[in-house]
């Protein structure tokens, strides 16, 4: 029998102050970055036009830039899409103009490529034009989707466990969603619909992780009445550790394959999920249990058989 991390007795609750430090070390610069640089929204959210071209011969990005400038697309972004023959050209909406502006962009891209490469030497493989109204709506909907799923999960966990568990799980998940958004800002990833999907998947994944640990907590609280909460929490995290390692090992390896083989559209998704797996594990081990502890202390269980003791710096390791 091959075993990893079984019968461990790590003191997760005891080292929570280091976890705070780690969170702060990521969140403070992350927040600053998010507030100063913000997010790089894709045209789905801002409105605008994207033209993806594939050329028969390699093109220099500078040459392309000059040609586009010459044809009036001065503000457009050019991004290499995997190779020096694939480029995505983005023109965000600048005040007014619906997708009719998109027609102009496509025509200008065609004209620039005609002049630099000659017609027939390239192909427009993708073209998207989004009006300003759609973009605004999408942003609202994305936010709403995240908030509503928080609400639904809170209700579900309140029914299946107890509302204190739900609240603790949500705070850990909120930590992950926020952290993931900071990661997206840090990596300058373009916020597309696929990325929103990735953020929601991180939400699901992190929750899944927390629920597995809380399920153990629920069980251990019934079974081991002698132990206090920090000890129960430590025991539960340690008991589920082999599963965490194995499950996320496989999850990370599938994410890695997606990042390597999945193509340009999927790659950012895989990056975000990769980060999400780590933050999900971290928050389930350090944020969710600690949050549960403080929530229980603030709102003690009524008629609980167990007195909630303050966490001691060195909590009794399980077994």
């Amino acid at each position: 029998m091959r075993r990893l991390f079984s019968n461990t007795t790590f003191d997760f609750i005891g080292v929570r102050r280091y976890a705070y430090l780690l969170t702060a070390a990521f969140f403070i610069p992350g927040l600053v970055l998010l507030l100063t640089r913000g997010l790089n929204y894709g045209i789905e959210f801002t409105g605008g036009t994207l033209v993806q071209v594939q050329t028969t011969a390699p093109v220099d990005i500078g040459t392309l830039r000059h040609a586009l400038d010459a044809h009036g697309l001065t503000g457009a972004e050019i991004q290499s899409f995997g190779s020096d023959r694939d480029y995505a050209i983005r023109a965000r909406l600048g005040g007014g103009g619906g997708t009719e502006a998109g027609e102009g962009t496509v025509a200008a891209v065609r004209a620039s490529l005609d002049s630099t490469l000659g017609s027939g030497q390239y192909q427009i493989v993708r073209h998207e034009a989004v009006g300003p109204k759609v973009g605004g709506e999408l942003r609202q909907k994305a936010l709403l989707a995240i908030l509503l799923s928080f609400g639904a999960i809170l209700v579900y966990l309140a029914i299946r466990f107890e509302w204190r568990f739900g609240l603790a799980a949500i705070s850990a998940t909120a930590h992950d969603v926020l952290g993931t958004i900071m990661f997206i800002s840090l990596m300058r990833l373009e916020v597309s619909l696929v990325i929103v999907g990735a953020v929601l998947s991180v939400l699901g994944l992190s929750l899944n992780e927390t629920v597995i640990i809380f399920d153990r907590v629920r069980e251990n609280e019934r079974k081991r009445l002698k132990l206090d909460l920090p000890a129960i929490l430590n025991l539960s995290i340690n008991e589920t550790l082999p599963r965490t390692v194995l499950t996320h090992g496989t999850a990370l390896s599938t994410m890695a394959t997606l990042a390597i083989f999945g193509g340009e559209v999927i790659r950012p998704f895989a990056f975000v999920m990769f980060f999400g797996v780590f933050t999900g594990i971290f928050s389930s081990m350090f944020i969710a249990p600690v949050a549960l502890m403080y929530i229980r202390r603030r709102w003690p269980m009524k008629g609980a058989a167990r007195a909630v003791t303050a966490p001691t710096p060195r909590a009794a390791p399980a077994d």
Partner: protein
Amino acid sequence: MRNIRSRLITIGIVTALAIWSLIPRTTTVRVRDPVTGLMRDSSVRRVPINLGLDLQGGIHLALEVDQSKGPVADPKEAISRAERVVRTRIDEFGVTEPVVQLVGGDRLIVELPGEKDPARAKSIIQRTAFLEFRITDMQNLFRAALPDIDKALRAAGVTAAASATPSAVSQLFSSDSVRKKGKKAAPDTSQANQAGALSALLYQGGIPGEFLVPEEQRPVAESLLVRPEVARLIPRGIELRWGTQVESRGARSYYALYAVEAKPIITGEELEKATARRDQMTNQSIVEFTLSRRGGRIFERETGRHVNDYMAIILDGKVQGTPPIIKSQIGQRGQIELGSRSLEEANDLALVLRAGALPAPLSIIEERTIGPSLGKDAIADGIKAGIAGVILVVTIMVSYYRMSGVLAVLALVFYALYTLAGLSGFGFTLTLPGLAGFVLSIGIAVDANVLIFERIREELAAGKSIRLAIDQGFARAMNAIVDSNVCAILTALFLFQFGTGPVKGFAVTLILGVLASMITAIFVTRTFFMIWLQRRPTMQTLSI
């Protein structure tokens, strides 16, 4: 033993259903006929999984009522008029599976898989609708011309299909309103047993000027009608227009072809209002309409001349529904009685009238064009990532859990099968993010097995017997599996609710994947363990 057998039977049935829903089958699609350039039904064999636009290439358009040139009184009504109009033009797009869909009550989504030219698609959608009322060919001029047309076709070397009935106009149903064939229609005795190429395809319908064409013969009829020698012989002042729906009579389906007067008695410009209602007294469905004052005067004159004639309602060159009879002179206000037809049908007709009367200008708010090569690359990438992911997962599971890992991997095969079958069976669309969701859910599918195996190991470590450890391992892991999976499904549901096209595809594969992984982990893997235990009742150590 019996327990195992019934489990195996259940797995067998579910698996058989899954495989059945995935085997390539013949589906009917509309394709452009290379000869005539018109649309016809054709059948292809393919695996019944819908691919999203991002995987097969095509055009996605979102449209709203254009209010930039002044507010539109009722945008919701206007967009449904527009939808009705776009639907009648669906064949013009020339793609096999166009989607025209109203979303959120104020937005029209048009998806054209395989279409490459956005300008053409947009011009079809944004063209102003044209409604006209025309009297059908009451004198049967077209039918009278059929023998000459047949003769001309024969001269051009076109003969009827062998199976055709050897009469000029085949009488499908005897109808009193139709005059019996005159002598003129009788073919030459020398060619009595040779059917007319065109007339053999046409069956006289219930009203003058109406012909029914068997559904499968429509492309042939269309190709004949566009030939110059035929077009020349169609009587002056008569034009041919196809109906919109397929009607079934008995075992066969027919398209209606109408011979109508070339000059409309009135056009949509003169129409002001049209509403549908159900008459309380007679329990009839009725469409009431109001014309402009000028239109009223014209209509009064025309209907006065055409009492007891049939009037075809033509939107964009297509006859809508069955032409009603003009019972008496009609002025500014009139009504069309649909008899026992449903109110829905009446509402649809009223919508047609309004669409022709008040064209709804549409503005494009979102447009996406994806080239077919991009989709092919994406599928190839997805398959590559999938295979690599599976190899890694299999390696990890088998090297860590040994024989139990092998069983879990075996269950994974069922999991993949069920997920794909779910996509196909419920008619969901596989998109590029959906492919990512599928690869991601392979990882998630493993989680349930890992939870169970870790529990079994714990029970074994606690000194329990193998049989008991397996039983309790499955039982104890259940709570965690259900709770975590329900949470995953809850978030995916919101994603589905919020998402458009591609993201919806991601949510769908994720939901299906989580459900399938629960079923396989709890039921299929369990069954494998039961069989394993039964085969080796004396097993001392479990390979886990």
